[in-house]
């Protein structure tokens, strides 16, 4: 039993409007479309990618070449569907036109020539990384990470300079979410936790590697893994807003922080 064709369909047919229109190319969208795309971008995308697309927790988009979206149709599908295994979520029920309007606005950002102004000197930054900053202790001599500290070799492609600087002075405010694909999307990685197995027993401090409703996996500062069933613990505290990485606010001068940021940005981009 086929229901009668609803009135709007009939209207469209009478007007000769094709019901299954071809998707519109980004370059043909109007200024009003792009302006609407900007409004939606500011509401949905700017939190991670920055108001001007300079990046933040998410990569900068104000560049002509986006590694995950080399052509316009791919960009539209990234806006719609996100990028599985990364922190980029699906657009959340965007219509095809709305996704195109956002994508067109993102492309317009890339046409601007906004360069990241780096004050620092990468060579001095490398010395700080290996010397005074002692970053290599946790992140490895070539920033490829070790058991405790994450790989930083693609951080320049993933993060803005401003965000990297913030993560040096206040690491707890800049924990990655959904970057490694180990935890489910949105969970903070490297979250410091304290676990106590029995009353009176010494606390175990480390960061969360994985967690379910019933179990948690913690890595201590020595890189050793500890697996707990939550019923075995008398206390489990998650230190939101904190990090096991020390703040460099006091240790390094402003100029030294700039140098270190410049070094991290200069690391080879590993994103395909």
């Amino acid at each position, binding site marked *: *039993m*086929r*229901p009668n*064709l*609803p*009135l*709007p*369909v009939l209207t*469209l047919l009478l007007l000769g409007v094709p*019901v299954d229109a071809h998707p519109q190319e980004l370059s043909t969208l109007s200024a009003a479309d792009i302006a*609407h795309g900007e*409004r*939606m971008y*500011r*509401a*949905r995308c700017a939190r991670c990618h920055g108001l001007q697309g300079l990046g933040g927790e998410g990569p900068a988009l104000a560049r002509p070449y986006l590694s995950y979206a080399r052509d316009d149709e791919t960009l539209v599908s990234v806006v719609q569907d996100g990028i599985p295994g990364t922190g980029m*979520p699906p*657009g*959340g*029920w*965007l*219509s095809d*036109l*709305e996704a195109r309007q956002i994508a067109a606005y993102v492309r317009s950002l890339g046409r601007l020539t906004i360069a990241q102004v780096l004050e620092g000197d990468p060579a001095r930054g490398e010395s700080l990384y290996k010397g005074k900053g002692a970053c290599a202790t946790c992140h490895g001599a070539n920033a490829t990470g070790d058991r405790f500290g994450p790989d930083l070799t693609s951080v320049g492609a993933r993060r803005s300079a401003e965000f990297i600087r913030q993560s040096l002075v206040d690491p707890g405010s800049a924990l990655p*979410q*959904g970057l490694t694909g180990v*935890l*489910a*999307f*949105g*969970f*903070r990685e490297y*979250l410091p936790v304290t676990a106590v197995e029995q009353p009176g027993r010494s606390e175990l401090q480390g960061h969360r590697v994985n*967690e*379910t*409703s*019933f*179990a948690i996996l913690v890595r201590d500062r020595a890189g050793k893994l500890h697996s707990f069933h*939550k*019923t075995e613990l008398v206390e489990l505290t*998650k230190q*939101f807003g904190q990090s096991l990485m020390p703040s460099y606010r006091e240790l390094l001068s402003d100029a030294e922080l700039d140098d270190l940021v410049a070094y991290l940005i200069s690391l080879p981009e590993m994103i395909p």
Partner: protein
Amino acid sequence: MTRVMTVVLLTFLPGNALAQVPYDRLVNADSEPHHWLTYSGNYASYRFSQLAEINTTNVHRLRVEWAYQVSGGSLIETTPIVVDGVMYITEPPSTVTALDARTGQRIWRWSPDVPRDVKHIGFPIVNRGVAILDETIFVGTLHAHLVALDMHTGAVKWDVTVGDNDLGYALTLAPLAIDGKVIVGVSGAEVGIRGFVDAYDAETGALAWRRYTVPSPGEPGSETWDNESWKTGGGSTWLTGSFDPELNLLYWMIGNPSPDWNGDMRPGDNLYTCSILALNPDNGEIVWYFQFTPHDTHDWDANQIPILLDAEIDGRARKLVVTANRNAFYYVLDRETGEFLRGREYSKQTWSDGLDANGKPLVRPNTEPTVDGTLLWPSLQGATNWFSPSYSPETGLFYVVVRQMGSVYFKGEVEYEPGEPFLGGGEQALSGDDASGAVRALNALTGERVWDFELLSPPWAGVMATGGGLVFGGSNEGNLYALDATSGEPLWDFSAGAAVRSNPMSFGIEGRQYVVMSAGSVVYVFGLAPE
């Protein structure tokens, strides 16, 4: 008499007087707790198993007895029906499989020709199970057919088209079989369908009646729609309802209005969306209705399980229907009249200052979706969703799985195109550590919280309480678990390796109790290991 002998005998008997699963067995399902005869376990939708072999003292001995992997790595939302040693499950998209309940061996399997380009807009490819009546298994398909199969062979008895899948109609729910009729509802409010509840003659497949959930001009309730908006008004009916054989009333829950997040083109309360309908099963007439969320713009449909129980309220014996709604309020209604008796917030919400004396929400200003986004609790998936709550007559508690999650709601422009998404906006939900879940035990008569068991992330799986004093369920991180039904203490868990999207059920064979829970694409059947 063995099952084989029964089959042979019935082959030569006319009518359904001696059918294997006559209507009387469904009405009296509580008298045979070793079987599971309807989606929610009984017509009152308790999802409660009286079986008590597995209990708080021995649940630590649970082990996997057998497992069944569904085809293609697809998601399982099915609740098995188990009767006389046979388990009937559905596999996505709309396959029905009969298994030996003792070992998991396949007995028969039937798959419809679901087109590769079948529309399922707004939900994944899932099916929640079958209904059984007399000698027949009933299944709704993703391309919106209702099919009757021989329970012994899987042979098709009849196949009718319920709705036009090109326009977005689809069936994912387990049908509800009552006396001589099969009741189904449809999905599709994200495509701008006009929802309905259908009753089909169980013998022939003939349409007995259709009750549209959005009234046409002139019908009561049509004044709550503007212009032509009723034609694409949504109100889908995608979850199995409940039934009171004594009152002869069906209770069916109605979904959101279309388009979901932009209410500008449908001013008014938009009856009967986000409502419960009490229907006369003989003719489909609306006996009473109650609307939970007038003029919804957040996709807070009412497609949650209504539970029927009898109790004294304020000194008066009442027949009740209770439900934990997606909008974060718990409702207690008189199921004879629809009178609102009690209601209260059961999970975090920021859109309402509570309910008035008639149960109508006191909506706060500035809670509508906007282009710039409006942050509200709960998220569009609601404080709970389709996955089942459970009611234990032994503890008097209503167990509900809650999603503690906020969302930024966006409003967008939208124009109706047949068979295309008709949404008008969307959401970005808070995720990860900014959201969580819980199993929450409520006083069934008041909605007051009795205990809480925290879950790491907002789940997609229901619960089942048992006579063994347990509550079974599953987490989004892949844990299957049993809690103490009185205290909420965790007593057992099993890492199943994939997110759980189903409801538990239980059955018994030769005095042994089994608990069935699914995770990922695997149906797990648990039993007690020997001491």
